[in-house]
């Protein structure tokens, strides 16, 4: 099955904004990320969050055909930074 990948911030700079990929049915988001890291070992240092179809998911979330899978670093506004 095919899924669409989207990347943001520091990840977008390394991976490009969008991609498509074939995955086996039942593949989890975490497994897809590990496959990307296996191809691009420098990604291993990047903190990543996952969203599928615009909703945050855990690494164990199983993908479905046509899903939009987003990979991105944690968002900017940590506790350290109060405006």
């Amino acid at each position, binding site marked *: 099955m095919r899924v669409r990948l989207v990347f943001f911030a520091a990840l977008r700079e390394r991976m490009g904004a969008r991609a498509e990929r074939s995955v086996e049915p039942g593949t989890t988001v975490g497994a897809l990320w590990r496959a990307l890291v296996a191809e691009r070992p420098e990604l291993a240092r*990047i903190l990543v969050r996952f969203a599928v179809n615009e909703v945050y998911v855990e690494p164990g979330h199983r993908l479905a055909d046509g899903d939009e899978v987003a990979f991105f670093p944690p968002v900017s506004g940590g506790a350290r930074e109060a405006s």
Partner: protein
Amino acid sequence: MFRIVRTPIVLERLVRAVRDPAAGAVVVFLGTTRNRNAGRRVVRLEYEAYGRMAAAEMRRLAAEAERRWPIRKVAMAHRIGLVPIGQASVAIAVSAGHRAEAFAACRWLIDRLKAIVPIWKREHFRGGRVWIGPQSGTPSRRPRAARRPSR
């Protein structure tokens, strides 16, 4: 009104969006771009959003605020792209029957927005630019405990 915008935020639009005859208070928060951070002079800021998800997360946060406090309406806008120093990058307006809940909800909304809405900030300073926030480090297995807000 929950918007990601590329142009300057027009506060009056948010205030209008939360107008309500049952409201006795409208509280507004503006987050503005600061010229210093971490001891460094910042010349401009740049924001990037996962646009549709960001708007959806804003809506979910507003719904959660409406469950927690007796408020009337919420409006939120975040600017993306390059934002000069001193301008609003984010705005939140909350109307409520009374000011206490409007202040409380607005305070909670900006804290949650900055923690979970998928928008990233990059500081530009003389000689470089850098993404703000944890971009790398030890991978965490837990996607942030974002959903269950602490009070």
